[in-house]
């Protein structure tokens, strides 16, 4: 189970949501939404250092659900959130970091596209492919 979400500032509305098992997507949406607050907390707490590689929310969600929510923030306050199944213990922190890095790079590429208006939903095929491949790796 893997869900990737990119949320843009300032209102934090999602630019991109993709979950691998597509069922229960709504639940993931909710999860991500709640985690945004935590991300904001971290941002304000960290002060200057804005790039938060990951956050581990083991206890954030209901214990039964057992998800891990990772967060990542860019310098422009664009938040990347990833929800991972806790049962997926093979997923190490490094991998999460690298996934976030890939997401960030792809996001940057999209930004470079003059046809993309910041704030639009991301509808790039290349980006989708990248995310798909990434998620396939994990699941």
């Amino acid at each position, binding site marked *: 189970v893997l869900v990737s979400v990119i949320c843009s500032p300032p209102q934090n509305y999602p630019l991109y949501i993709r979950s691998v098992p597509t069922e229960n997507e709504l639940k993931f949406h909710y999860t991500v939404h709640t985690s945004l607050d935590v991300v904001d907390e971290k941002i304000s707490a960290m002060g200057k250092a804005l790039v938060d590689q990951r956050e581990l929310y083991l206890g954030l969600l209901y214990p039964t659900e057992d998800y891990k929510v990772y967060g990542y923030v860019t310098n422009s306050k664009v938040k990347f959130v990833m929800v991972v199944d806790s049962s997926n213990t093979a997923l190490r922190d490094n991998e999460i970091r690298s996934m976030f890095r890939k997401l960030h790079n792809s996001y940057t590429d999209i930004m470079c596209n003059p*046809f993309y208006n910041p704030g639009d939903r991301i509808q790039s095929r290349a980006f989708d492919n990248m995310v798909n491949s990434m998620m396939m790796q994990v699941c």
Partner: protein
Amino acid sequence: MEGLTLSEAEQRYYCDLFSYCDTESTKKVASNGRVLELFRAAQLPNDVVMQIMELCGATRLGYFGRSQFYIALKLVAVAQSGLPLRVESLNTVKDLPLPRFVVSKNEQESRHTALYSSDADNPASYSGVIPPPPGRIQVKKGSVSHDTVQQRTSTDQQESTSPVVSPQQSPPTSPHTWRKHNRHPSGGNNERPLAGPGPFWAPFSEAQPGSSTSSDPIWSGHSPPPHQENWVSFADTPPTSALLAMHPASVQDQTTVRTVASATTTNEIRRQSSSYDDPWKITDEQRQYYVNQFKTIQPDLNGFIPGSAAKEFFTKSKLPILELSHIWELSDFDKDGALTLDEFCAAFHLVVARKNGYDLPEKLPESLMPKLIDLEDSTEVGEQTGEVGYSSSPAEAPPSKSPSMPSLNQTWPELNQSSEDTAIVHPVPIRMTPSKIHMQEMELKRTGSDHANPTSPLLVKPPDLPEENKMSSSVKFTPGNTVTDGYSSSDSYTSDPEQIGSTVTRQRSHSGTSPDNTAPPPPPPRPHPSHSRSSSLDMNRSFSVTPGQQQAGVVAYPPAVPPRPQPSQGAGPHVHRPVDAEGLIAHTSTSPQQIPEQPNFADFSQFEAFAVSGVNKEEEDEIETHSEVLQVEKPSDSASSLRVAKADGRVEDKAPANVPTSAAKGTTPLAPPPKPIRRRLKSEDELRPEAEEHTQKTGVIAAVLASQPSIPRSVGKDKKAIQASIRRNKETNTVLARLNSELQQQLKDVLEERISLEVQLEQLRPFSHL
């Protein structure tokens, strides 16, 4: 060319044909291959063909130049119209129909079937758009109806043969036509998806309409708008007559119609051109068109089109933003938000293809891959080299001799590697300074890296080395504190540099140019650009000459000064540093000799030892380091000169020089040591002057040392400086001790030699009498 005058249509047609035949783009066509095919297609008897060739001069030249080709074509037309072949007929015959060439239909027909149907609509739309010259439209229609297949074929042929035409005519008009057609609902026209882009491609089609529907050259190989090729009807059919009829009309209206037709044709062309054999291959005409379009946006072909400009440009194509966005992703190969020429062509081609109804690929097709890789590589390399070069420049700033060139060269490759790997410029610069000092620094680094800087490679640590040297030198000033602990006193060093002045600068710059430049901020009071030690030494000397306090202050920046009296005693223990056990021993051994002087002469003696020994050993590096430090501290010119000379000198040479100096050891211990170490690498000849310098230096050094104790130290920086100076002093001590021992040994050797020589001389004397 015999003043051949061609009408516009003919001009265009001939141009197309020439391009078609000019497969090698050499601007001259061999009288075989396509030319022959063409002439054969003209359906003229062979002798006529021969005659034509003769007349145009091709047989004379052996090939068809452009003019010859044109003449030949005209003659073909003449022949085809039944007129006698005469040179005069070239210009006299007016309203000559264009030569007709029958070409076999090829596979292109099948491809263009769909297009053809759409093309068939185009003429109608054309008429709707702009009142085309009646003749043309009719001709087109007629041609369309008559020779669908032929048209297509001929269009193809035309397209292939008229590559040159379009570029010539279209580029300027494209933007205009573009706008014109924007009004037309081309965008939503399924039948003519290209209608929108028509104006876009106006330039392409320009040639065609102008040339009475010559197919858009851009899409050579693709089915040109069927209606267009009528004028150059390869098919020997009714279109010919239509051609004739429209010829005069088309010539006049071509311009007007051209734009319109071009729009249409471009649409068609685009549709047709959407790649058949290699769907994504860009033909030459297309490429030429793209290049021209690129020029309209960015005159410099090597430059970039910024994203915003590209966005505007491609938005004109009326493709949905999503698709344009995807095209951009595909074509912006280096993801820099700007389009180079290759990227632009790829994007353009994709737009055209999309307009033609082809789905966009998921990945950029091979044929559209911009050849940026080499460029990127070269740029990267260039950048790297640039960085390297840049970094090295500061290193070279101080005028440096190149005694250390060999070492430089050696290190250079290292640096390059490191810079490539890490893109760090630092390492490189260091090597750049081909100065003696650099050599010394190299040695120092080596020694330092051996000792104190186990971690960083020489490259990285260079700044430390010079710093340390300086530190140690400053420490030395202060009196033998030789508490130097290797070369880790970089921190303290920074404080020293200011005081050390030129010497420090010197060392710093050498050590690694880049690291020096970046790391330790050169002390402001660095009077000299620390080119050579000598210069720095001069500075030192001047410093020393000036109130000793000043010097002491500068030199003995590290708070090591106060404990000067102690160092003599502490020198012993300090000497026992593990690094230089031997040195320590030697130092201690020498110390007793000069204990009384040690506080002030610890360095001096070491200098002497240095000078004498000529240090050709590993320890010399350290010693030199220390000696450098010492030298720095001691403004003795001799020391500097010694160092300078030392670089080339050898130990043996120094020995004799040292012998006399050793005699004067008491006075000039300081000067020699540092120099000898360096001199080691230098010519031996300079040892002699070194000896002299030794004496001078010692004097200076003594003065410096004397002044050291009185150097006041600020408490604030003292600790750091003290520690640093202590470390440096220690290092220096060990180095000096080693040097001292070596020099002593050399002295002994030299003395022995002298004795033996004297003996020989005496033995020979009696013989001389005989």
